[in-house]
C-alpha cells in the first residue's frame, strides 16, 4: 500500500504530529502504525496502570472515532522492521510493506538492559508497554519480596506501588542518590526519607554483580552485603531509543536518531520526534536525548508542521530537562539545568525544598518539593531567556507570583 504520510509509533510525538499535519493538510492520506496491539497510549501512564489507579481500558489517548474523524489508517500490532529510504518504503513485522511520501519515526524507546551476568536466565519484569504494566499489576498481590534495579522515575514509581501493595521492596541504584537526573542530593534526601519511612530499602551506590534462579525466586547478588532473594525483579535501569530497524537505511543514528531543528533526519523525506530523536539541547548546541513527554509533544508538532509544509513552523528551541514526580502524596518538580548557572536560592528541610539557579539574571533552573510554582511558566521564562534583572530580588523571594506577573505582561 501507499500513503502520503507514514507515522511509525502512536504515542505523544506521533499524535501531535498527526494533529499538526491535519491542520495543514486535511485530506492527504495518513497511515499510523504501532507495534502495540492497542489504541494510542502514553508510557507515562503505565505506573498508574501498575498501581490500579488507571484501568487499561481507559488509558487510550485517542479512540477509534477520533482516528476516523482525522482520516487516519491506524494499523496496530505491527513493528517496523526496516526502512528503504531510496525506494521510500518501510517493512513491518506483519509482513506488510508501506510506501510513503514522508515518514515520521516516532518509535520511542525500549528498556535498556544492563550487562548483569545471569540476567537472561531469570524471570524479570520491565515497564515500558501496556502489556508490561498489566503483567506487573497482576504480579503485585502475590509479591512478598521485590527488588527494583534502578532509582529513576520508573523504578521509584514501581517501588512505591509494590510497597503500597504490601511487598518488602529493595531498590538497588548505582548512583549515590535517587532520581539523579532531576534532583540534587538534598532534594533526593527528602524523597529517600519518604521511601525509608514506608519501609522501602534503598541500596544506593550499589551494583548488582549477578542474578541467578533460586527456586521460584531470583537471587540478586550485589557488591554490598548479602544476596537478596526476590519473587519479583524489576529492571528499570533506563531506556534506549528504538532504532535497530534503521540499520542500512542511511538515516544517521548516534544514541538516537539525529535530527535538526525541524526534526529532519539526515535523509530527505524522513523526520523523527519524541524519545527516539536526538535533538539540540537548550543549554548548549550538543544533541541530546531528552526523553520526556513535553519534548515529545513539541517535537511531534514541529515534525508534523515540517512534513506538511506549514509556514508557521518555529524551530526547536532546544531540549530542557524537566519533570514532575509525585511520591506518597508529595510533589517534586524539576525544571531546567542544575548546573547551567549559579544557585541564587536554596532551602531544604524535611518536607520542603526549593532551589533556583540563574545565569546573567536569567533563570536556568528551578527545583522544588512541595513548593508551589508553575512549571510551565518557568519553562517559558527559561526558553525566552527573560532578563529578570529588574525583578531579581522579587523573583528569588516569590518566584511563583513574580513569574505570573511577568507571564501576564509578556505573553498574555
Amino acid at each position, binding site marked *: 500500500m501507499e500513503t502520503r504520510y507514514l507515522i511509525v509509533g502512536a504515542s*505523544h510525538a506521533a*499524535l*501531535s504530529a498527526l*494533529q499538526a499535519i491535519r491542520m495543514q493538510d486535511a485530506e492527504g492520506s495518513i497511515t499510523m502504525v504501532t507495534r502495540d496491539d492497542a489504541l494510542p497510549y*502514553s*508510557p*507515562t*501512564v503505565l505506573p*498508574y496502570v501498575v498501581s490500579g*489507579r*488507571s484501568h487499561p481500558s*481507559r*488509558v*487510550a*489517548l*485517542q479512540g477509534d472515532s477520533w482516528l476516523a474523524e482525522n482520516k487516519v489508517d491506524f494499523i496496530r500490532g505491527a513493528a517496523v522492521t526496516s526502512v528503504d529510504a531510496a525506494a521510500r518504503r518501510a517493512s513491518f513485522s506483519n509482513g506488510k510493506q508501506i510506501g510513503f511520501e514522508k515518514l515520521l519515526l516516532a518509535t520511542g524507546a525500549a528498556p535498556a538492559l544492563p550487562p548483569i551476568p545471569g540476567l537472561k536466565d531469570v524471570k524479570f519484569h520491565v515497564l515500558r508497554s501496556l502489556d508490561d504494566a498489566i503483567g506487573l499489576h497482576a504480579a503485585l498481590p502475590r509479591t512478598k519480596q521485590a527488588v527494583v534495579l534502578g532509582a529513576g522515575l520508573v523504578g521509584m514509581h514501581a517501588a512505591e506501588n509494590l510497597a503500597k501493595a504490601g511487598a518488602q521492596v529493595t531498590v538497588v541504584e548505582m548512583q549515590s542518590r535517587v532520581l539523579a537526573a532531576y534532583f540534587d542530593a538534598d532534594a533526593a534526601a527528602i524523597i529517600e526519607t519518604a521511601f525509608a519511612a514506608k519501609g522501602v530499602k534503598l541500596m544506593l551506590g550499589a551494583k548488582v554483580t549477578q542474578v541467578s534462579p533460586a527456586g521460584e525466586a531470583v537471587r540478586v547478588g550485589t557488591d554490598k552485603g548479602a544476596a537478596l532473594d526476590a519473587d519479583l525483579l524489576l529492571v528499570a535501569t533506563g531506556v534506549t531509543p528504538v532504532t535497530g530497524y534503521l540499520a542500512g537505511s542511511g538515516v544517521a543514528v548516534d544514541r538516537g536518531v539525529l535530527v535538526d531543528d525541524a526534526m529532519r533526519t539526515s535523509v530527505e523525506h524522513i523526520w523523527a520526534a519524541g524519545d527516539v530523536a536526538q535533538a539540540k539541547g537548550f543549554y548548549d548546541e550538543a544533541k541530546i536525548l531528552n526523553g520526556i*513527554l*513535553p519534548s515529545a*509533544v513539541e517535537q511531534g508538532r514541529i515534525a508534523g508542521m515540517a512534513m506538511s509544509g506549514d*509556514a*508557521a513552523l*518555529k524551530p526547536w528551541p532546544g531540549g530542557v530537562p*524537566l*519533570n*514532575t514526580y*509525585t511520591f506518597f*502524596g508529595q*510533589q517534586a*518538580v524539576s*525544571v531546567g539545568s542544575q548546573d547551567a548557572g549559579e544557585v541564587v536560592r536554596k532551602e531544604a528541610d524535611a518536607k520542603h525544598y526549593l532551589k533556583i539557579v540563574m545565569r546573567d539574571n536569567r533563570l536556568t533552573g528551578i527545583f522544588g518539593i512541595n513548593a*508551589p510554582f*508553575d*512549571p*510551565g*511558566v518557568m*519553562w*517559558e521564562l527559561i526558553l525566552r531567556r527573560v532578563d529578570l534583572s529588574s525583578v531579581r530580588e*522579587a523573583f528569588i523571594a516569590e518566584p*511563583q*507570583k*513574580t*513569574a*505570573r*506577573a511577568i*507571564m*501576564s*505582561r509578556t*505573553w*498574555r
Partner: protein
Amino acid sequence: MAAYNTIAFKPELCNGCNACMTACATVKTGSPDHVNSRIQIVADEAGFELAMCRQCGDPKCVSNCPAAALAKDGGNGVIEWDGAKCVNCLLCTVGCAFGGIVYNAAAGHVVKCDACGGDPACVKVCEPGALKYLTTANIYREVGDLEDLFVPGLSGCQGCNTELIMRHAMRRIGPDTVLATPPGCIPGMGSVGYNGMTGTKVPVFHPLLTNTASMLAGVKRHYKRQGREVNAVALAGDGGASDVGFQSLSGAAERGEQILFICVDNEGYMNTGMQRSSCTPFGAWTSTTPVGERGSGKTQDAKNMPVIMMMHNCEYVATASTAFMEDLYVKLDKAIDASKRGFAYLHIYSPCTTGWRFPSQENIEVARKAVETNFVMLWEFDPRDGLRLTRSLDNPQPIAEYLKALGKYRHLEPEQVDRIETTLQKNVELIRDLAEGRRPAMAGR
C-alpha cells in the same frame, strides 16, 4: 456550534479588590480562601496581573496529559478535567505557560477554571469591569446594538471598506458628536447628503479639503465655550489628511486641539478618479501614475502619516485595520477618551476594491494580508508610554502574498518588488525600534 466564550481581563481597570478570587474560591470549594481560587490576581508595584486558564485553542495541558484526563469540549471550548482519569502526575502544569492549571493541596489534585458552565462567578462580582465574559459574537452584537449613525443606502462602491469604517466608528463613538467630512469618498457616497438632507444622523459639515482640522477645532471650541461636551470627529481621506489638508491638521495637532481626526487611508484620491496621493505606495498604479510604455506606477514611497503624527507628540495616535475589529474598537475608545484632553489621530487602512483593482468580496482578506505581511503595522502611541505594538511583527507572511492580491501591482518588475521589500523592512525596523525604546518616540524631548 456557538462561538467560544472567554473571560477577558483588562489590567488597567483592575483595582486589586480580589472579589473575583473570593467569589471563585467560595463557589468552587465553599471556602473563601484565595488559595483555592481558579483565578489568581497578582499584584506588584506596576499594577495587577492575572493567572488563569485561557481555555487555549491548542491546549498544551491536554497534549501533555498521559492519561487522557483533560479534553477540550468542542461545543463550548472549555477544557474539562476528568478526576476519574487523572493520575496526579502534574505534567499538565508543565505544559501550561499561563499558570492556568495548578496543584491544589486541599483538593489533592490539579484544579482549573471551568468558566462556571457559562456563568462565571468572578465576572459577576468585578465592580470596576476589569473582567468581562465575552464571545466574538458578543463583540459584534454589542456594536450592532448601538445606533447606526448613517442612513441606509449610501452610494459607496460594492464592497467598500470605507463605508464599514464610517458606520462602525460612528456607532462606537456615539451620537454626542459633531462630524467633519471633507471632500472625498465619505461625503461623496452621501454622508453630507443631497438637496438639504444629510445622510448622517449627527450634525455634520463639509469643510474644504484644506481647512478640516482648523474648522473642526473652532467648532469644538465654540461648544466648549457654551459649556457642552461633544466629540469633535473628522472622517477624512488620506489626501485630505496627508496632502491638501496637512497644514491645518499639523497645526491643530501642535496646538493640542481636543478633536479626533480619523484618516481613512485608501492610498489615493479614489472618488475623483483614482489619482495618486502622498500616501500612495511605491509602484502602485493610479490614474496619474499610469502603467504603459514609459510609466510603471508611482515612483516615490508613501509618506508615513501615522509616524509623522506621532512626532507631533499627540495625546493619542494609532493605526488600525478593519481586519482586526476588536483592536479597532479599543483604539476608538482610547482615541475618544484622549480627545477630551488633547489631539487624537487614528489612521485606519481602507483597501479600495475599485481603485486597487481586486474583487469586491476580497476586501477584508486584503486588509488582513496587509497586516499579516507587516505592510500595515498595528500600533498605538501616547506621550507617557511611547509606541506600543498591538500586534506582533514577528513571523510575517511574504510581501508577495499581499502584492499579488492587488491589480494595482500586477505590472511590478522584480526590482520594484525588491524596493517595496526594502522599504518595508526599513519601516518595520523603525516601528520595532520605537516599540522597543531604541529610538525616542517623540520629537524634541
